[in-house]
């Protein structure tokens, strides 16, 4: 049975180290200026500072799929690195016309429209790029790679959990089950 591939972020644990950004760039060869995952920081520099890795969430009912006028975005079943069938959302860059509708539809701002590309990359100018669970690199190739959310596996504090939702949900629940994760005052002592 196919399993949904998702991301869950334990934001209390994210320290904004940038591992997800860098391994994504390294694995998928995403060019300078485009990011499939980015860390957004709120309350920077003061108590309450939190970091949130933002990328395509591989929605179960993806609004981008509904919005795409040329059916370039698909919810597909691919093999994951452990041999399971995984459901992920990918884009066929050869079909994409770069209209930007998916960007409007996406609640997370995940679709990217690279600009300023040079050389061999020029043909992908303005064509939508986003996280594919490492299935499709920035420059698409024949055949899929295995779904393997390296950003989750490499995350320095296991704040970002990525992969089979049935595997990562228990990890997420455990990480969040202790209220000590959040900043709090301890009982006064003196």
């Amino acid at each position, binding site marked *: 049975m196919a399993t949904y591939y998702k991301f869950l972020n334990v934001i*209390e*644990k994210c*320290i*904004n*180290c*940038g*591992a997800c*950004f*860098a*391994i994504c*760039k*390294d*694995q998928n*060869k995403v*060019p*300078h*200026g485009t*990011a499939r995952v980015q860390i957004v920081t709120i309350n*920077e*520099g*003061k*108590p309450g*500072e*939190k*970091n949130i890795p933002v990328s395509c969430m591989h929605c179960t009912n993806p609004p981008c799929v509904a919005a795409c006028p040329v059916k370039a975005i698909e919810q597909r079943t691919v093999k994951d*690195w*452990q*041999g399971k069938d995984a459901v992920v959302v990918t884009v066929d860059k050869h079909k994409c016309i770069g209209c930007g509708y998916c960007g409007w539809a996406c609640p997370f701002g995940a679709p990217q429209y690279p600009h*300023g*590309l*040079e*050389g*061999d*990359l020029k043909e992908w100018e303005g064509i939508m790029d986003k996280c594919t669970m*490492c299935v499709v*690199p920035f*420059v698409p*190739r024949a055949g899929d*790679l*295995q779904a393997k959310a*390296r950003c989750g*596996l*490499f*995350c*320095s*504090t*296991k704040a970002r959990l990525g992969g089979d939702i049935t595997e990562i949900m228990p990890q997420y629940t455990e*990480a969040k089950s*202790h209220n*000590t*994760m959040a*900043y*709090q005052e*301890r009982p006064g*002592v*003196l």
Partner: protein
Amino acid sequence: MAARMNSIGKSNGIRLSRRTFTKLSALGTAAALSGISSVSVSAELEGLIAPASASPEEAGVRLIKSNCTHCAVGCGFHGRCENGVCTGIEPWLENPINTGSMCSKGTSISEILNSELRLKHPMKKTGGQWVQITWAAALDEIANKMKEIQARDGPDSIMYIGSAKTSNESCYLFRKFAAFNGTNNVDHQARICHSTTVAGLANTWSYGAMTNPWNDMRHSGLIMFFGENAAESHPVAMLHILEAKRRGAKFIVCDPRFTKSAAAADQWVRFRSGTDIALLWAIANVIVNNNWHNTDFIEKRTYGFDQWWDVVKNYTPEVVEDITWVPAATIRQLAYDWAHPPQGEGTAACICWAMGATQHTVGTNNIRAMACLELLCGHVGKPGGGTNAFRGHDNVQGSTDMCVLSHWLPAYYGLTEKAWRHWVTVWNMHEPITYEELKAKFAEHPAGSGNSLMHVSGITVSRWYEGVLNREYPIAQPNPIKMVFVWGHSLNSITEMKRMKEAMEKVELLVGVDPHATIAASLADRPDGIIILPASTQFEQEGSCNNSSRETQWRNKIVEPLYESRPDGWIIRELANRLGFGAHFTYEDASRASSDYQRMVSPEQVLDEISRGSNIIMMRRSANRLKAQQLQCATDCSVFSPEDLQAKSGPLTGEYWGLPWPCWNDQHPGTPILYRNDIPIWEGGNEFRPRFRATGSTAGNPISDDGVSQLGASYIGPGYDQKNSDGTDGDGWIYEIDADEAFKNLLNQNICPSGAGRARFRAWDLPDPVPVHREPLESPRPDLIDKYPTYDDVTNLYRLPVLYKTIQQQRKNLVNEGYPFILTTGRQVEHMGGGAETRSCHYLVELQPECYAEIHPTVAIELGINHWDWVWVETLRGRCKVRAYVTERVNEGVMRGGKRVEATIFIPYHWAGWFEGQSYANRWPAGTEELAYGDSVNIICVDGYDRSTVMQETKACLCKVYKA
């Protein structure tokens, strides 16, 4: 910034199927069941990292185990090698230290390895141009120059700056190379990162290293940071800290800035840069006044509590509030928490630090104060407790252990005749050499005095340039330095860069050895006299590496050396050959291919030689043991537990990951927690070493200068002195060669050969036996300088005079004379050290493209500075042009006499390529230019140095800021 694609990285991703994983597992299990013998391990391991592939699509894909070369956590990863090219990395989920996790620097490793911006060939600067030369020509010219200088000026006129980023074996050979060249002018990054940690801890309780493993912090009840920002400098350490927090531990960050670590903490305490000791003593003061201290522990295992209290009783919370900015009530609460670690799994508290505590004129005292706080509540020697010095470079613990340092021989042997004779004995077993022969290589100073510089500490890396300039600070050696090796060292991590630049322009020859050109090639504005050699990265050679918590891991070679780069050992041997002592640096391994650059300098054999002599730290580990651990870890992730790093099943059951030293012999499991004496030595127990012996001490009765016995309680009951191999009292254990059997007998009686002594609250032989607060050289509080003055000037510290009081008095009123703000420096997570590697990596540069100064919004508004404006930050040394990063991470200071003072300005130190606003990018050899340049904050940091180790002060000086 133009988009840049790595041409090597364009090939397809991994195609490793479930079937292959199963196959790998089966192979490993077979190896495990067949019994691990030293020969079969290597063979099986080779099979494991190069699995024969059945299906065409998997052909050529190999996952090779290695360790990250950035910080000292020691994260493992798999290099993905396809057809001899590293195409990326995959997580090593079974490595117990990081369980797959890495940070942005670690995940950029394949990009850094394959970088097109690396130094590709030996280059020589001549006539103002960089020209490519052959290895033979480069090595010949360097060796000839060395011989010329040694004959004309003496051996001490060559400075050897080594590296914490090379393997243990390379570090050891480098130290040996300096010895064979007849000088102690050899030093490396440990001097400028944690030398004060080593001095502070070793003078408190014998070993200068992190006491507990990274993973052990999971069991802490309280984790306190003092001048450490793990979220930026050791991100994967936060994996364990946040796990402890999840289990209920409290995580407190004491730091002048609201760091990323502070954002993840339960509590953050802001205090003024350079006042650590006052704050720590106030915490101790409250603990003792409330009788929360562990009197039993203090009585049985420590010395000097009463004299210590005579000092500390004066640091009441109210007094210290004025010094540190920390409210007295907060100090009381910190003291309560320290003595009563809240909930969590354990009851012990650990204290962690890095450069924030070490890089001060009082660095050694800072560390001593933290160690005393551990002693006070008996937190040391327990799971979850201890002093965790987070070390910086991947192998800086190893390079310190190998003592690429101007005052020690490998494994912390000093420079006494006895120490030299010990190592000459070891070296002689490899290739004949006598003590007298080696001594003849060293100069005397003054000439004819009989005072051999063999026994005199050399010049440190923190002030090597003074050895060249020989001007304001005359040096105590025959002639100034005329030639310098910069071997894997980013010089922009050293302060006083203006003087250093001048020195780099004055030496006759400057030799850079590094995978990148670095500022060794470019900072000096000179037309010739520079040769740079391309060293291989640690992914292109094999060797062992010690992480911060003394665990040794074996790095396999992922790819053959790229371009014309060569492994460090090969370069050292080639030079030694030309200097006439190549046989001492030849360790031929006939099983390696003749094309293998490590064939003649086998890391396995070098490690064996290290093990033979390294008694003080008992780094007795063979490559086979390390490889066997790696094999086990590859096959079954449940073998080595991430909880305590111990193997729970399989043939290595009981062994600790990385065999943390002291590892007493070939069967000992390693000692993950130092000074833990509630378990037998055979299971990793350890004692405080009675190594401090004042005059009047005898074998069996070490005493302090006031006559108190230094023998403490031990696992077997009463304390005892260090042992000879026959069990009698004496320091014989240090000088034994291959005495495994003798040590086994002692261990069987639960006797630690290094003795069982007391830790010292009072270190009678240090400049401050009990640390006291001393205001920074440039203090924002002139009114406190008289009460808490710095040290008196010193005439000869590591061959150079050091000024303290003179500087402080001259600049006493600086805060009111136009320099109102406190300048402090630190790390960015995306960059490492001097940044030559990371500023050449386009992922990391995309995240962190420019150098900046953090300025509080209030200060920025008053100065008319907007976010990301160009600003000048100026001190008495010079100025830096950087971006303004307007943020509340730093404090806004206070209004005093109508002027704003004591606001903190923070600048990261990884940047180079600009010098006081002027770019010198055009001085890099073509094709090696880095992607991002910035001004170096170390141009403007203060000219102050630690009183004991000459560590440079980078964290507290006075500055002003204005719009550029």
